[in-house]
């Protein structure tokens, strides 16, 4: 019994992360899968779901608006107003189309974010 619990404990310590993703804005939100072992370094949290774009948990605009314009103006204004915007981590749902994601990434860059990373679930 003690051995079993010790093995379970070691397994949990190895496979679980203390850095949880931000709460999924909508049910069914799934991150893409990758093998990158690069650790998260923090920064602005931008979440792109099939429905909407969120900045630090606040809904900014509908994702549909990002599919037909080169810059997402509401996101641009909000990011520009922030003092600390050197880094951003983008949590994108696996189903979001590239044109919407490209607009969000380009908007963050245009608003002065130097380093943009995509967060993925490790394989």
């Amino acid at each position: 019994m003690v051995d079993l619990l010790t093995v379970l404990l070691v397994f949990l310590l190895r496979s679980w992360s203390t850095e949880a993703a931000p709460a999924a804005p909508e049910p069914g939100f799934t991150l893409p899968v990758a093998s990158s072992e690069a650790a998260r370094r923090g920064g602005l949290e931008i979440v792109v779901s099939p429905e909407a774009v969120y900045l630090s948990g606040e809904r900014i605009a509908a994702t549909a608006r990002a599919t037909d314009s080169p810059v997402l103006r509401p996101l641009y204004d909000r990011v520009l107003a922030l003092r600390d915007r050197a880094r951003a981590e983008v949590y994108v749902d696996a189903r979001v189309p590239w044109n919407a994601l490209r607009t969000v990434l380009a908007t963050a860059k245009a608003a002065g974010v130097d380093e943009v990373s995509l967060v993925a679930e490790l394989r």
Partner: protein
Amino acid sequence: VRADAKRRNAPPADADLRPTLIAAVTLLFLLMSFLLTTTAGQRLGVLDLELAEEGDVAAVPSRGVLSNLELRVDGSDVQVRMAIATTDIAAASTARETRAYAVPAVSGRLDAGRLGAILAEAKAMDPSAESARIVPTDGTPAASVVAVLDTVRGTPGSPLFPRAELR
């Protein structure tokens, strides 16, 4: 004296070990519940991005045996194009041959194995090459973009083209 002290501290031969075991099991249960409440089952990693801006000239250098490595991603299908020098790359005018490979989706998913094999072959031709250009179509889902980017970069142990740029 030491032997006496040892005998005094040792548990008697007929001691009941159950309280000790129960204490150990309780401690492990407590540790596990603490871990389950403070951690998440999802392990996350990040992919740093190099984004081409509007009007940027291609960053992929045209020198070297391998050049202009480009991956066009449409859904889960990928077209790989690259230029391979067929004559001395130091010569004034180097002849280049364009090679193209199709990597169709398998069961609706990216064939990462075949794509990885093509890229590994390209890397073997020019180990100094590090750049690639990924051009997804508008409707390509983020999952495919990330999967292609991940495959193109390779693993830390065997990197392929770590300076992959999204367009």
